[in-house]
């Protein structure tokens, strides 16, 4: 069997390293809501029960941290993001998607990555509901982006017109973060990313 390709600069690790920049929130799934808003025609709000009763997609894909460790063959299960936001009808001027989280973390993702067929809002990891440390009740997962974009404890998906820094981007991490182009830091190679003030693109 062929060894799975590693993106440039990555190494295989054995365990997830748990980062929680702003602490680990303990979320009550009865009270938690996921909002879909911003540049959309019909803002939405989902409960955990509604989301987990939607048709789920399951696949095995590896996980790549910008600090270079990687976890092979992680079993992800959730709802394709483009399925759950389609009813909100994002406006054509929406170019980026900001993922907001319970504890204040945020991560911007280009709309083409956020709505890619393999972009999931994950509820399960390796066959079990996400643990608190892994982002319960939900986190997006983008197989082609470094993992800081797969923001844990997400509670809002906001469509926006232009790029704006999220939590780590303020400190120099790349706008898009493609693992194959090795876009770790803003000055890294990869396609230039248009940077505009929020809402002006």
């Amino acid at each position: 069997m062929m060894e799975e390709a590693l993106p440039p600069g990555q190494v295989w690790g054995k365990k997830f390293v748990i980062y929680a920049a702003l602490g680990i929130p303990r979320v009550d799934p009865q009270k938690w809501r996921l909002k879909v808003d911003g540049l959309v025609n019909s803002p939405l709000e989902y409960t955990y029960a509604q989301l987990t009763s939607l048709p789920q997609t399951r696949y095995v894909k590896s996980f790549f941290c910008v600090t270079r460790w990687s976890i092979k063959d992680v079993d992800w299960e959730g709802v394709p993001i483009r399925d759950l936001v389609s009813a909100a009808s994002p406006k054509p001027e929406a170019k980026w998607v900001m993922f907001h989280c319970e504890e204040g973390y945020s991560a911007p993702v280009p709309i083409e990555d956020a709505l890619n067929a393999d972009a999931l809002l994950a509820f399960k990891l390796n066959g079990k509901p996400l643990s608190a440390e892994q982002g319960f009740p939900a986190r997006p997962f983008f197989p082609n982006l470094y993992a800081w974009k797969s923001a844990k404890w997400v509670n809002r998906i906001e469509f926006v017109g232009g790029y704006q820094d999220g939590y780590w981007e303020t400190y120099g991490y790349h706008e898009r973060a493609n693992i194959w182009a090795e876009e770790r830091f803003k000055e890294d190679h990869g396609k230039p990313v248009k940077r505009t003030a929020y809402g002006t693109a």
Partner: protein
Amino acid sequence: MDEVRQAHLPGNFELYDPDSSEPGAALCKGCWEEGGVRNFSALDTVWIKEEGREAMLWLCRGHLENMKSEGEKSGTFIRSVNGVVRYPALSTLQGGRR
């Protein structure tokens, strides 16, 4: 043996143990970049302004003093605190939207 890797806080370094789910011990950025020395002792965190962007660095007392004296002349030094701060506080983020 643990390897030295990029820390999650950009510009810094820490040990990486593939068997652990905890971030590894922080190193002095100056000692590591100058001579490949793994210095873990008495590190402090310094905030500087670099190319219009705020950065946080983990440094030993010697490297902190150098950074401070140079940074005060050039206007890049902001502040320092004792110990290793691994993550920026939300309130320090520029334009931090919730």
